[in-house]
């Protein structure tokens, strides 16, 4: 079950009447069923029917679903096969990410026209601090209404906005008022708002933490608030103190515009589980090429390479290594990935998914390179930059490693 279904839903959303939003400069804006809503713009005849966006194959997962489909229990990250079983009448649309990125950029532009204090956290959600825009544009609730109107008018899709004094309460509020809603949690009513919620609603409470809390008899945020901080710290470590603060609505996190990328990664689920090391290495190469190209496009270099390997029974291991120097070169990322894969001792083990990620990012402009003895002055990096240029002119598959070229007419030779 998806975690965002844990929230009790208020059957009648509060009216957008005059509420006290004076201490509530933080907005959390979340598009409703984003990918599905964008698809409906091209397929208006499907409005009001269950629609699922996601790859239709046996290994596909639900990326987004309309509220009509959600009523059947479909939710994002659900395996497609299960989604079809619970909602056979749904129309399944394969994702077209370019389209979503375009709408996402447009929506973010609307936010940035309101305040520069915009922190995008996904393609379909962002935090805004409108504290500085009040004089110009009105109260936070008025600004929220304006955003909802502009998004609907310019892109024909709906969004929900939570208005609160802190980021995490704003996020809870937007979730509570979905879809197509607006909820202000006045600064003075945060505790009443929070305490009835299940602990899982809090940011940072994952499955493990939730289990630990339930073992202690803590089920709601209100329960949590009554537990002494020292007990929480003893049971949960540093997270405990953090949760105690959240339970009383205290959240020091500020809206950070342009939160820098912390890592860049790609992963791939195989159509069938794979145990052939050659095939897995080839996939690591493909992912490394993609990650390196993304790093270069973003002007980043990273020092830590990590590899994710998921066995057919879904147990997953992640191995990482920090390099001598930060890189954006696919060859280096690939070589490290292969070493990590070999060192993981999973050769000949059936894998369902592999992923490559580069962490510890910094600006490429400040990167330095220790030259090696007898090394040519131009190397892989220059070769890959040339690939980038070719890709910009001739398309993403213009140049790639020979082992990744698919033979157009089947295997050559016997």
């Amino acid at each position: 079950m998806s975690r965002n279904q844990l929230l009790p839903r208020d059957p009648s959303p509060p009216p957008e009447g005059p509420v006290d939003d004076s201490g509530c400069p933080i907005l959390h804006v979340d598009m409703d069923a984003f990918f599905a809503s964008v698809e409906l713009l091209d397929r208006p005849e499907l409005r009001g029917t269950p629609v699922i966006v996601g790859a239709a194959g046996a290994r596909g997962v639900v990326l987004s679903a309309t509220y009509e489909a959600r009523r059947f229990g479909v939710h994002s990250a659900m395996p497609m096969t299960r989604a079809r079983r619970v909602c056979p009448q749904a129309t399944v649309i394969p994702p077209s990410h370019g389209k979503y990125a375009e709408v996402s950029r447009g929506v973010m532009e609307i936010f940035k026209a309101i305040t520069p204090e915009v922190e995008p956290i996904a393609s379909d959600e962002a935090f805004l601090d409108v504290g500085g825009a009040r004089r110009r544009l009105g109260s936070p609730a008025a600004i929220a209404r304006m955003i909802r109107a502009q998004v609907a008018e310019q892109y024909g899709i709906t969004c929900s906005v939570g208005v609160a004094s802190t980021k995490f309460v704003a996020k809870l509020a937007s979730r509570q008022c979905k879809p197509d809603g607006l909820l202000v949690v006045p600064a003075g009513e945060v505790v009443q708002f929070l305490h009835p919620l299940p602990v899982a609603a809090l940011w940072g409470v994952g499955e493990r933490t939730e289990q630990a809390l339930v073992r202690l008899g803590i089920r709601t945020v209100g329960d949590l608030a009554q537990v002494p901080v020292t007990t929480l710290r003893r049971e949960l470590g540093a997270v405990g103190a953090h949760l105690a603060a959240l339970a009383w609505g205290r959240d020091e996190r500020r809206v950070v515009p342009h939160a820098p990328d912390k890592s860049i990664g790609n992963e791939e689920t195989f159509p069938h589980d794979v145990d052939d090391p050659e095939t897995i290495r080839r996939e690591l190469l493909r992912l490394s090429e993609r990650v390196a190209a993304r790093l270069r496009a973003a002007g980043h270099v990273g020092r830590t390479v990590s590899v994710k390997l998921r066995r057919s029974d879904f147990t997953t291991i992640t191995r990482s290594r920090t390099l001598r120097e930060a890189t954006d070169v696919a060859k280096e990322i690939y070589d490290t990935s292969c070493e990590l894969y070999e060192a993981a001792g999973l050769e000949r083990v059936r894998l369902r998914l592999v992923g490559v990620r580069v962490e510890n990012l910094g600006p490429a402009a400040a990167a330095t390179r220790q030259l090696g003895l007898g090394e040519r002055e131009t190397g892989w990096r220059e070769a890959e930059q040339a690939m980038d240029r070719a890709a910009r002119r001739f398309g993403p598959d213009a140049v790639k490693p020979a082992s990744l070229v698919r033979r157009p007419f089947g295997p050559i030779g016997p």
Partner: protein
Amino acid sequence: MMFRIDRDVLAEAVAWTARSLPARPSVPVLAGMRLEVTEDQRLKLSGFDYEVSAEVTLDLQTGEAGVVLVSGKLLAEITRALPAQPVELVVDGAKAVVTCGSARFTLLTMPVEDYPSLPAMPPAAGRVGSDVFASAVGQVAVAAGKDDTLPMLTGVRMEIDGDTVTLAATDRYRLAVRELKWQPEQPGFQAVAMIPGRTLADTAKALGGSGAEVEIALSSAGGTGEGMIGFSSSGRRTTTRLLDPEFPKYRSLLPTEFSARADLSTGSFVEAVKRVALVAERNTPVRLAFRGGEVVLEAGSGDEAQAVEALPVDFDGDEINIAFNHQFLLEGLGAIDSDIARLQFTTPTKPAILTAGKPVDEGANEDYRYLIMPIRLSS
């Protein structure tokens, strides 16, 4: 078997032999140290891990022939802690009893028949003063790679051509080369050997300081990696298995023409590099800007802490901005063994050479070159 010996003599010999014992022995018996009293009243202590062997021979006043194998690490700890009085070791069945003054230790013995026999010393190839050898090896081994996944770069290459020995090591980012004279057994003797760097450095250091000569023994000269090298000096001998002799063709990498030369006081240069490097993380550069009579050292970047310091320099040539890994630079400065450091450059992306600045007094090692690859700064 039994022997009686002076505590200091024993402790030193045991410590020297224990150096070569493996920390995590592949077979338990390799953790042992073999002690043998020969008929001619000598005590032989030996250790072996199939790669490196070490043996010390001591003269005895009192001893009964026999052989025993005990835990080397424990014996080393015990002898180090004993009071300064004669030590007696007596084997009694499966136990070895060590007595010194009023202290008495009973050690379990290990099955000596399971202990591998030490490799025979290869034929002698030549001799060199132990102090010269120790300092030359120290100068070169600093540039050897520490990464055991690249074994080819962890070795020190020894090239012998008549009365000249050339030692070289590189970890890809720097290269140290030292030439020295020795006395070969046969004039015109030629050989090449790749010696594990860490072992060679330890051995040379352990044999140095006595002022005696080191005899170098080599099997399968120019061999195929199965060769062995032995070193012996005043009753101590050690052998080491050689590495695959593959090594970069380094001579062509040593630049011969330069566009600039800088002579600096080694001491103040080291101090200044250490100071500015306080703000540089590991593997990040110290930037050097050479202008006329001054070099400006800088480290750190715009959004972090920064440091800058200027030093006088005797500079001749085109102005240059060049950056180095500070650790590599410091290790090179520590190895040149001279009050004046000379840096020679061509361009900011070409290797620079660090040598002793001026021929100092007798025995100065202008035969030492430390090549260091720069760090390229983006744009």
